[in-house]
């Protein structure tokens, strides 16, 4: 049994066994997702309809996009706490530009995307150049973005621009009477792009190498500095893009939007099997992590009898059950 081998001989295992062990957390997460869905199907009528699952994607599209960017950051062993605040800033700024200053969305959206990317890159430079702790830099970034959003507008701004309303109402049929929103499609595209970036490019390999051991990556001559800055810029871009999707979803800009979303995003990435210490994980896992969080919420909505505090406790218990099961299954089969 591979489980009885000590960790140190992992490299001596056959290649396919190693790959299985590496993929196992992701497979376990997927299996648990299926099991939870089945449980929901048994407990509640109408749970297993395709639209319920597509709604997971529609309602969590922004979380999904943020999680892809965050996965890269966490893979390098860093963290980005500013994602929720950047979403709020993006939504407020684009709402203010479109609604109050009469900008066309096609001008406002590229601007907020550029701002988000620049903001992420700036944090990356601070982290890289001055060796500051990512946690503190991005926490200050969170204060800054949230504060800047409040400075633009204290009140919520509703968006009535026809282009926004049209895109928000857009439903793309995917067969069987089910449909996806524009944001959900965009989220899927971002996940696909993220997978490709992580698996097929030099940038992606460097990210994994830095997470494994930054010193070795540097000694190998990999562009550690630019990659680190790039990773935070990518996360900033994803957050801004998520902010754009969020704005479509809510049709408003508000400085208190997406409060505490950073923890949901981190939870999604980690549930998806990415280690917070860096070096190990999958972009695809983060998608499944987001879907699992969404599924927990959906199960509670379907139940419908829980008062607000029981909802919190139920989410905690489900999260616990999920993490315990994952640990149990991974420990039994994967060794690591």
């Amino acid at each position: 049994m591979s489980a009885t081998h000590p960790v140190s001989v992992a490299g001596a295992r056959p290649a396919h066994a190693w790959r299985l062990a590496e993929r196992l957390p992701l497979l376990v997460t997927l299996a648990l997702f299926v099991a939870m869905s089945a449980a929901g199907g048994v407990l509640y009528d109408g749970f297993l309809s395709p639209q319920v699952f597509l709604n997971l994607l529609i309602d969590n599209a922004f979380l999904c996009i943020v999680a892809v960017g965050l996965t890269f950051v966490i893979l390098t062993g860093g963290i980005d706490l500013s994602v929720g605040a950047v979403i709020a800033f993006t939504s407020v700024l684009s709402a203010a530009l479109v609604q109050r200053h009469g900008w066309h969305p096609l001008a406002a959206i590229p601007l907020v995307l550029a701002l988000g990317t620049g903001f992420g890159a700036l944090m990356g430079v601070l982290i890289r150049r001055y060796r500051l702790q990512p946690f503190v830099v991005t926490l200050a970034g969170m204060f800054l973005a949230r504060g800047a959003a409040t400075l633009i507008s204290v009140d919520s701004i509703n968006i009535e621009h026809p282009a926004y309303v049209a895109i928000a109402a857009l439903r793309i049929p995917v067969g069987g009477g089910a449909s996806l929103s524009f944001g959900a499609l965009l989220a899927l595209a971002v996940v696909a792009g993220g997978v490709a970036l992580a698996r097929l490019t030099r940038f992606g390999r460097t990210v994994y190498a830095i997470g494994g051991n930054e010193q070795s990556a540097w000694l190998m001559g990999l562009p550690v500095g630019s990659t680190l800055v790039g990773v935070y810029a990518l996360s900033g871009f994803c957050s801004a893009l998520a902010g754009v999707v969020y704005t479509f979803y809510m049709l408003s800009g508000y400085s208190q939007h997406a409060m505490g979303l950073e923890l949901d995003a981190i939870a999604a990435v980690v549930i998806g099997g990415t280690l917070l210490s860096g070096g190990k994980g999958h972009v695809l896992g983060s998608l499944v992590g987001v879907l699992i969080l969404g599924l927990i919420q959906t199960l509670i909505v379907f139940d419908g009898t829980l008062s607000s505090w029981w909802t919190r406790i139920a989410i905690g218990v489900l999260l616990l059950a999920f993490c315990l099961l994952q640990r149990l299954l991974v420990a039994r089969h994967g060794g690591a």
Partner: protein
Amino acid sequence: MKTSFAIGLAHGLQTIASRPLFWPLLTLALLLAGNGLVNPGFLSLQWRDGHLYGNLVDIANRAAPLILVSLGMTLVIAVRGLDISVGAIAAIAATVAAWTLLRLQAGDGDARGLLPLFAALAAAIAAAAACGLWNGLLVTKVGMQPIIATLILMVAGRGIAQLIGDGQILTVYYAPYSYLGNGFLLGLPFALFVVVAVFALLHVLLGRTALGLFVRAMGHNPQAAHVAGVRTKGISLALYTSCGISAGLAGLLVSSNVASADANSVGYLMELDAILAVCLGGTALTGGRFSLAGSLVGALIIQTLTSTIYAVGVPPQVNLVAKALLVFAVMLLQSPEFRRSVRGLAMRAGAGGAR
């Protein structure tokens, strides 16, 4: 000569600057001095009615809960852990204390000495310790990543607190309990004595016994520490439990101060402020290097920032931005790389004259 004196001074400064506590203390001193310049009355202390009054006392008093939480947080971060449930634990402790007090007071109306107080304190601290122990078990026995293990309690904890209070804000009128957060002892706020007691206890445990060495060893390399015979799991459990207890104490101070326990607001976002305080104090989030005194100073820096922002009278919307910019400034000031590049720039600007 003037230059040799300058070089000597620079060397002396460099020796002092290499002390871990130097930069956090300098930051705090600069902040206080800045306040003193803007508002000359800021630093003054007065003795009135047998109590010491002044902004400095006020800052220390208000920082007390955050200091307690930061001290506990330092312990878990020292062994590569993290506890993001401290705010929820504070809320649980506060509601448990308030609930116990209300029950005992409803029992038979008149006051029966200090029994309700001790019962409430014991119940609250036991609850907080149980929360910390639970986190520790998830991390050490189950092997979850600390942030996820404590995320569970962070999500569920406020729900549990609401459940205890039945969704209500519990209001307590009981003088001995109110003394915790509002009372004065020897002219100083009682909360400061709690802080000093906890700090002294931890300082003795980690600075004067082998425990501190073990904790550092575990932070540097958990595997190596385990192989070397350090009982890593037991120590981790104890550290998470201590972190829970200190968060519980903070919750007690907060709820006693406002004579009520609100499951939603006690310790809200306190985990982030505490981690920030720990980082500002020079503790590495990667473990192995920690400073209890640094975290204490870090928490004071955060509270001084908050008080400064209020004192300057900026509109509330600017608060967060100002706090963020100040945090960036503080971090850059503490970064050796940043100081080196500034020094390089200054030398080039000085046309290479100094050396």
